[in-house]
């Protein structure tokens, strides 16, 4: 368990969900910083350090990526594919965080090597607990190079 702040890249277009996720991580036992982008194109620009995201101080490489599936401009599955096709970026855990429980979405996400697939709970208490558990699991227990 490190004391430095761990970085999460949140890719989510629904601003209510963003608010909820950010709040869930605000008082998390693992110190963290969330960087938020609202569409798939911005997500890829961020990760490949293009455009406004060239400065690694301002746009640090995340320890974990939370990825919604339905996104403007470039779809979440396409974003996932491009991350997992890149030799360096593929090492970052990508957690799908979606409202969809469709078999097809689940299957496609795993085929494209999502590390995990979570369905957003509708219940507020459960949502908060999920943020807590997911943060602790990926930021504290899970190891990456």
């Amino acid at each position, binding site marked *: 368990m490190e004391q430095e702040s761990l970085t999460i890249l949140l890719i989510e277009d629904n601003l209510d969900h963003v608010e909820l996720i950010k709040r869930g991580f605000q008082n998390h036992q693992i110190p963290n910083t969330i960087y938020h982008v609202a569409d798939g194109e911005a997500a890829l620009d961020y990760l490949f350090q293009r455009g406004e995201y060239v400065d690694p101080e301002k746009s640090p490489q995340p320890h974990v990526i939370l990825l919604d599936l339905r996104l403007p401009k470039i779809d979440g599955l396409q974003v996932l594919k491009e991350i997992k096709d890149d030799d360096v970026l593929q*090492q970052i*855990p990508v957690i799908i965080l979606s409202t969809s*429980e469709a078999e097809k979405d*689940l299957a496609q996400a795993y*085929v494209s*090597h999502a*590390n995990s697939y979570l369905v957003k709970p509708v219940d507020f208490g459960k949502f908060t607990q999920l943020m807590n558990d997911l943060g602790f699991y990926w930021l504290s227990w899970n190891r990456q190079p």
Partner: protein
Amino acid sequence: MEGEALVILLVEDNLDHAELIIRSFQNHRVVNQIYHVTDGEAALNYLFRRNQYADPEKSPEPHVILLDLRLPRIDGLQVLKEIKADDELRCIPIVVLTTSEAESDLAQAYEHHANSYLVKPVDFSKFTQLMDDMGFYWLGWNRHPCL
């Protein structure tokens, strides 16, 4: 969260570790059943339903695979590679559970699409807590389409 027992395939040759893992899952808040194999060849036979593992009633498809890296006969990384190369099996989450913190093991595991990589804590209570958190994450929260 379902009432039926969720299936874990544990691939581990160290019997002390296996004992510890099985014990931690015994009173887990998620009802589960652990199937244990002790080498890489048996792991692949189990998953591809060969030989003694042909009967899906006796060797059900797991919801999650806990995979040690250093294994007799077929190495853990090779097991990982073969599972993730299979169109159907690749959707089963594989959690690497090892004593190795070597950068090269971490990098290779992710290269072969391990879903997660965990280092076994030496401290007993931490070990138990990891099993609890990990079990709940993969069996309670995570979804996958294989079954």
